[in-house]
C-alpha cells in the first residue's frame, strides 16, 4: 500500500511538472502599451500619439478656466455638490487653497500627462526607423510646442512656486525651477520646436489647428505662443519680433487661431465648461462686476447673458450666465488673433510706441461696437485700457487673474464677502512635496 501511495505521489509530481509548463502571461488585454509604442513606432502609432496629445489638452481644461476665472473674479461656479468653488477658491471664512484638492491636483496632473505624452511621442519618433527624418522633425516640433504650452499653463497656476521642466524620467524628476526660470525654459523649448519645424514634413492630422496644420502653419502657432511668453517675461522687443513671425494680423479675423475642439464621437470629449442658460443648480454665473464695469454699448456684454432669475449660493449672487462657450462642442481657444493684437498693443505701450498701441486698441474697440479710445495717451492710461480690453476680449479664456498679477493689481479685484481673499498662486500639489 505504501508503495502505491508513493506511485500516486509520483503521478502527482508528473502532473505538477506539466502544470509548470503552462504558465500564463496574458499581457494587457485592454490597451496599447508605452513599451510597444516606443520600440519602433509606425506612422500610424505616432499619429495616435499626436491625436492623443491634442485630445489630452482638453482634460480638466474647464477646471483650469474655473480656477483662473474664479480667482480673477470673472465668474462664480455654483455647484450644489462642490462647495470648494465658492469657499476655497474665493478664500471664504478663512478657507485656504489646499495642496491636496482637486482644483490644483487635477489640472496640474492633466497638463503633465500631456507633457508625458509629448515625451513619449518624442521618444517614439526618435526610435522609429519607419519614418523620414523630415517627418521625425515634424513630430518633434509639434511635441515640443505643445509641451511648452502645457508647462506654461501649470506655471500660470503655481507662479512663484514654479514647475518642473525635466520630467522625462519618472523615477528621477528634475528640480523645480522658479517662475522666471520656468518662463525661460518654456521660451527655449518653443525656440527649439521652431527649429524642428523648419523644413519638417507633417505626416499627421490635427483637429483644432485649422489651416495651421502644416510645418509653416505650426511655426506661426509656435511664435504666437512665444509672443505670449515674451510679454509674461517682459521681453517687449522679442514679443514684437515673435508676433511678426506668428499669424498675428491687425486686420485679420479676431477669432483666427488654434483651438481645443470638442466632439460627440466615441472616445471624444465635450466642452464641460458649457452650461445652458438659465439652469439652476450647477451654473456658471458672471461676476456682477463684469456687467457693472462694462462700457455702454460694448457687444461683449453678450458673453454674460441675463438670466430669467438670479442665482445665488453661500452669500454670492449674480444674474448673468457666462455665455462664452455656447454649446457643448464650442471650441476653447489655445491662442487667437484678438490676444495677439492686444499683445501687440501691450508691447508697444511698454516700448512707448503709444500711437501704434492706440491703433491696435481701437481695432479691438471698433470690433466690439465701441468708439475710438478717447482717454489720455499716456503709458499708464493705455496700460489700464489694454488690461480692460483684455478683460473683456479674453473673458473666461483664462487670462484676467494672470494679467492683474503680472501688473501687481490683484488688489483691484472686488471682494464679495468680508474675509474673502484673492489668491496670488496655487500651492504645489501635495504629490510634488518632497
Amino acid at each position, binding site marked *: 500500500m505504501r508503495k*502505491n*501511495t508513493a*506511485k*500516486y505521489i509520483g503521478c*502527482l509530481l508528473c502532473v*505538477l511538472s506539466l*502544470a509548470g509548463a503552462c*504558465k*500564463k*502571461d*496574458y499581457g*494587457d*488585454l*485592454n*490597451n*496599447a*502599451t*508605452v513599451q510597444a*509604442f516606443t520600440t519602433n513606432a509606425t506612422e500610424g502609432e505616432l*499619429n*495616435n*500619439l499626436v*491625436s*492623443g496629445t*491634442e*485630445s*489630452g489638452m482638453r*482634460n*480638466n481644461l474647464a477646471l483650469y478656466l474655473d480656477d483662473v476665472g474664479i480667482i480673477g473674479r470673472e465668474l462664480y461656479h455654483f455647484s*450644489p*455638490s462642490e462647495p470648494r468653488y465658492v*469657499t*476655497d477658491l474665493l478664500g471664504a*471664512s478663512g478657507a485656504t487653497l*489646499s495642496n*491636496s*484638492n482637486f482644483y490644483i491636483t487635477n489640472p496640474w496632473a492633466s497638463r503633465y*500627462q500631456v*507633457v*508625458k*505624452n509629448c515625451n513619449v511621442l518624442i521618444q517614439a519618433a526618435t526610435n522609429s526607423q519607419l519614418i523620414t527624418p523630415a517627418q521625425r522633425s515634424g513630430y518633434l516640433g509639434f511635441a515640443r510646442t505643445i509641451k511648452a504650452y502645457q508647462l506654461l499653463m501649470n506655471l500660470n497656476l503655481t507662479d512663484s512656486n514654479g514647475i518642473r521642466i525635466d*520630467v522625462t524620467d*519618472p523615477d528621477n524628476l528634475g528640480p523645480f525651477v522658479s517662475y522666471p526660470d520656468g518662463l525661460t525654459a518654456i521660451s527655449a523649448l518653443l525656440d527649439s520646436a521652431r527649429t524642428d519645424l523648419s523644413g519638417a514634413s507633417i505626416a499627421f492630422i490635427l483637429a483644432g489647428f485649422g489651416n495651421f496644420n502644416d510645418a509653416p502653419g505650426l511655426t506661426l502657432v509656435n511664435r504666437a505662443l512665444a509672443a505670449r511668453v515674451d510679454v509674461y517675461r517682459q521681453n517687449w522687443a522679442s514679443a514684437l519680433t515673435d508676433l511678426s513671425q506668428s499669424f498675428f494680423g491687425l486686420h485679420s479675423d479676431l477669432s483666427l487661431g488654434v483651438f481645443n*475642439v470638442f*466632439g460627440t*464621437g*466615441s*472616445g*471624444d*470629449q465635450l466642452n*464641460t465648461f*458649457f*452650461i445652458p442658460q438659465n439652469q439652476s443648480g450647477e451654473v456658471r454665473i458672471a461676476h456682477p462686476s463684469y456687467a457693472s464695469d462694462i462700457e455702454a454699448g460694448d457687444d461683449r456684454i453678450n458673453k454674460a447673458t441675463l438670466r430669467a*432669475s*438670479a*442665482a*445665488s449660493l*453661500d452669500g454670492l449672487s449674480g444674474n448673468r450666465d457666462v455665455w462664452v462657450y455656447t454649446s457643448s462642442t464650442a471650441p476653447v481657444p489655445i491662442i487667437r488673433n484678438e490676444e495677439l493684437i492686444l499683445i501687440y498693443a501691450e508691447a508697444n505701450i511698454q516700448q512707448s510706441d503709444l500711437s501704434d498701441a492706440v491703433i491696435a486698441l481701437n481695432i479691438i474697440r471698433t470690433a466690439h461696437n465701441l468708439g475710438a479710445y478717447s482717454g489720455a495717451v499716456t503709458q499708464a492710461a493705455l496700460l489700464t485700457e489694454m488690461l480692460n480690453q483684455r478683460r473683456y476680449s479674453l473673458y473666461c479664456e483664462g487670462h484676467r487673474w494672470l494679467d492683474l498679477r503680472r501688473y501687481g493689481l490683484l488688489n483691484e479685484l472686488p471682494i464679495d464677502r468680508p474675509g474673502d481673499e484673492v489668491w496670488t498662486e496655487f500651492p504645489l*500639489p501635495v*504629490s510634488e512635496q518632497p
Partner: protein
Amino acid sequence: MINLFRLVIGSICLIALPGLVFSQNATITGIIKDVSGVPVTGASIVIKSTSRGTTSDAEGKFKLTVPANASLVISSTGFTTQVVAAGGGSAQLHIRLEEDITHLDEVVVTGMTTGIKRRNLANAVSTISSKELDGVAPAQTFDAALEGKIPGAYINANSGAPGGGISVKLRGVTSVYGTTQPLYVLDGVFVDNTSTSAGLNAVTAAASGGAPTSNQDNPSSRIADLRAEDIESIEILKGASAAAIYGSRAAAGVIVITTKKGKEGRTKISVSQDLGFIKARKLLGVRQFTGDRAASLSSDSATSAALRQEFLTAQSTGKIYDYEKEMYGNTGFARNTVLSISGGTAKTGVYFSAAQKDEGGIIKNTGYRNSSLRLNVDHRITDNIKIGLSTNYINSSADRALTGNDNAGVSLGIALSSTPSFAQLHPDANGNYPSNPFASSNPLQTIALMKNNESVNRFITGINLEALLQKNDISATKLIARGGFDFYNLQTTALFPAALQFQAVNKGTSIEGFTSNLNTNYILSLVNTLTPSDKLSLTTSAGLTGETGDYNNLLNVATQLISGQSNVDQAGALNATQLRTKYQNDGIFIQEEANIIDAVTLTAGVRFDRSSNNGDVAKYYVYPKGGVSWNLTKMGILKEGFFNDFKLRAAYGQANNVPAYSSKFTALSISNITGNPGVLVNPQEGQANIKPERQAEFETGIDFSVLKGRLGFVLTYYNKTIDDFLMQSSLASSSGFTSEWVNAGDLRNRGVELGLTARPVQTRNVTWNTSVNFWFNRSLVTKLTIPSVPQGSFGYVLGSFQIQQGKSATQILGLDGTGGVSKLGDAEPSFQMNSYNEITFFSKLSLRFLLHWKKGGQNVNLTNLENDFGGTSADYDKVTNKLGVPDGVYRIMQVGTDAHEFVQNSSYLRLREIGLYYSFTRIPLSYVKGIRVGVSLNNYLTVTKYKAYDPEVSNFGTGFSTGVDVDPYPASKRADFHISFDF
C-alpha cells in the same frame, strides 16, 4: 488505472477482513434521539479506535456488528459527541444526544479537503449556522445576512440600495488598494464577488476626469446573489493562519459556505412564505422655513425678495412639502417563497430548492428580485466512490436609483439638499414635471423617470469526487477532486430620458453595460489517514489547485437619444468602453495533521503559489503554515471537574494577495479628438516587477468550557502582518503619472476576540441559549516606503484617510482649526460586541434575537454638510455653537479651517434581528408534518448619535476607505411574517 483497480480491490478485501478476524462479534441495534425526543437522522456511530461504523436512519435507528467490549462513538452535527458501551445484548440501545452549544464536536475545515473537530482546532474559526443566518429575521441579500454575526469582522453596508453591497473585512484591513474582501468558497467553488459599475459616473461626474465609471457608483457585490435559505453552514477563516491552504486569494480570509444536502430518509417537502414590508430606518427631517429664512437663501436682494414671496405664496396655498418623506418614505412590500425538497436513499441524497423573492424599496421604482433554483445530488457509486454535484441557477434584478456623491447636482440626495420645502416639484395634470429652480434636477422627476438596474443570470456548479483508494484498520487513503465554475452575465441599465431636467445638454442618456464573468477552480488532493494506534492519528494531504478568471465588461454610454428610445444605437452620440481581465493562479500544497491521544493536534503545511497577475508569472511563492492545539482535560493534566474541556492553541500561517490585473502595464488609453484616434499615457504607471502582498498571521488562544458544557469560552489573540502591501502610490504628478502600484510597506493588525456561549436557563419548559462576542482590532503601519499623501476621501478640508508610518492604517486626518492637520478620527471601531440569543418555550415557541454594538470608529459625514450648503438641514436654525450664529451657518464656516465637524463618531447599538416563531407539530392533517409561523424585525432599532441616515455607509464601496457618507440611498428596516409547511 490498473493501479487504481488493484487498490480498490485491495481495499475491499481489507475492509472485509476484520469481519473474519473477530469471531465473537455481536450485532447490536440502537436508536438515537435528541433531548426533546426527536430522532436524530444521519448521526455517525463508529466503533472506538477503528474507522468502522454506520449512520442512523430516518427514524434515528442503526444496526452494527461490534466486537465484544467495544465502545461506540456517537456524533452528529450540532450535538455533543458521546461514547457509550456497545454492550452486546439484544436490547436496543437508547441514546440521547445533547445539543452542543459550545460546538466543540463540530468538524471544521482546516485544509482544502480535510477537517478536524473544533475541540482539536488550533484556530478560532467562527461558524454561522443556517438558523443564525436566516432563521431570525432574514435579510434581503446573503451579504446583509452576515451583518453582526462574525466576531473579528468589520461588516459595513455601503448604502441601503436594494440588492446589497456590503464590505466584509476580517481582522482589520489586510490591504490598502488590494482586495480587502474575503474569498467566498461555495461547496468548493470560488465564487466571484466583483462589483461592476453601471457607468453612473457618466451622469453624476462624482469622480472627475470624464470616465464613465468610478468607485462612487454604488454597485452591489455579486456575492449578494446567493440564497441564504440554501445554506447549511458558514465557516469563517479569518486570517492566514487558518486560511493559508487556500493560497493565492486567501489573504483577506476565506468564507467557506456549505449548502444543504439531501439525507437518507423520508423525503421532506417544505414550503415557506414570507410577507413583509420595508421602510426607511431614519429620515433626517427638513428645515422649517419662514419668510426670513427663505429670503436668506440668497444674498442678492431681488432674488431674496422673490424667494420670500415664493415661500409666502406656497404657505398661503398650503404647498409646503416634506420632499425627503416623499422621496424616501415609500413602503416597499416584500414577498419571498421557498420550496425545498430533500431526501434520499442510502446511496443517493437529493436537495432541491426553488425560491423567489420580490421586494420594493423605500424609494419608488426601486427594489430587488431574486429567483433561484438549486439541485444538490450526492451519490455513492460504489461503497468507496462518492460523487457530489451542487448546481445553482440565479436570476436577480436590482433597481437601485441614483444616489451618493455627484458633481452634477443630479443624484437624489444632492438634489434634495438644496431644495427647500416651498419649492414646487410636483407634476402637472399631464404628468410634466417642472424644473427645480433650486437644483440641477427635480428629484421627484428623477425617481419617476430614471432607471438604474442590475440584472444577473448566474450558474454556479460544483463537483466533488471522493474515492477511497485504500483502507485497512490503520490507514485510509482518499482521492478528493473538487472543482467547479461560477459563470454570470450581468446587465446594467442606466436610463435617463431626455425629459429629465438635467438632460438639457445630453438630451437623454442610456448607459448599457454587459459583463460576462467565468471563474473556474479545481483541487486535486490525496488524503491519507493513518491511525497506527488509538493514541495517534496522522492525516497527510497533498495536492494541486488551479483557478482561472475571465472577466469582460462592455459599457456603452449613449447620449442625444431618439425620443422614447433606450437602445444605445438610437442615439446621436455613443461612447463605448471595454475592460477585460484574465488570470490564472496555480498552487501546490502539502499538509500534515497529527492527533495524539485526541488531546494534542499538530498541523504543518506549505503552499507554493504563482499567478499570472504577478510581475514574475513563473515564480512560485512559498507560504507555510503550522498549528498546535493542546487539550489539557483530554490529556488528563486538568481533571474534568470544574473544567469540562480546556484547550491551549496557537497557529501560524502565510497567504498572499495577488496584484491587480493591470498593475504591470503602462497603458496608452484611448483619447480621440473629432474622429482622429488618439492614445494618451494612462496616469497609472506600470510596475513590471510587482509582487504579491504577503500576509503572515499568528494566532493563539484558550478555549474552555465549564458547568458541564453549559458555559464555553473562546479567547483569541492574533497578530497579523502584511508585508509588501500593495498600494497605488501617488506619484509626483509632474511625472505624467498620478499613481503606480507598488509594494509600499508593511502593516500590522493586532486584535482580541472573546467569545462566550452559555445556556443560562435550562428547565423542562424553557431553554435559553446565548452567545456573546467581543472583539477589537488595532492596525499599525510599520513601514512605508513611499511619501504619505491623503487618499480615499475628499482631502483634509473635509477629512481624509492617510497611510503614515507609525500610525493606524485607517486614521482620518483633517484640518484641525489651528491651521494644521491632525488626526481627527479612525475608521476602525474601538470594539464591537454581539449577542445572539434563542429562548425556547415548550420546544414550540422560540424567540431569537441578535444585538450588535459597534463602539467608536469615525465616518466622514458630508450628507449633513450638503444639506447645510443647500440651506435645508433640519437643524440649520438651531443655535448651539459658540459663535451664536445658526448651526448651519456655523458648520459652513468650519469648511476650510476645521474638519472636526465632519469627522463624526459612528458608534451604534443595533437590534439587528429579532424573530418569534411557533411550531405546530400535532396537526390533524396527516400529510402535513409541521407548520411554523413567525414574525421578525430586521434592523428595526438603532441607538446612535450619528447625524445622517445611518452610521453604516460607504460612498466608495467596499474598498479601503469605508465610512464616507455622501447622500447615500438611506438604510432601510423590515418587518416580516413567516409561515412554512413541512410535508
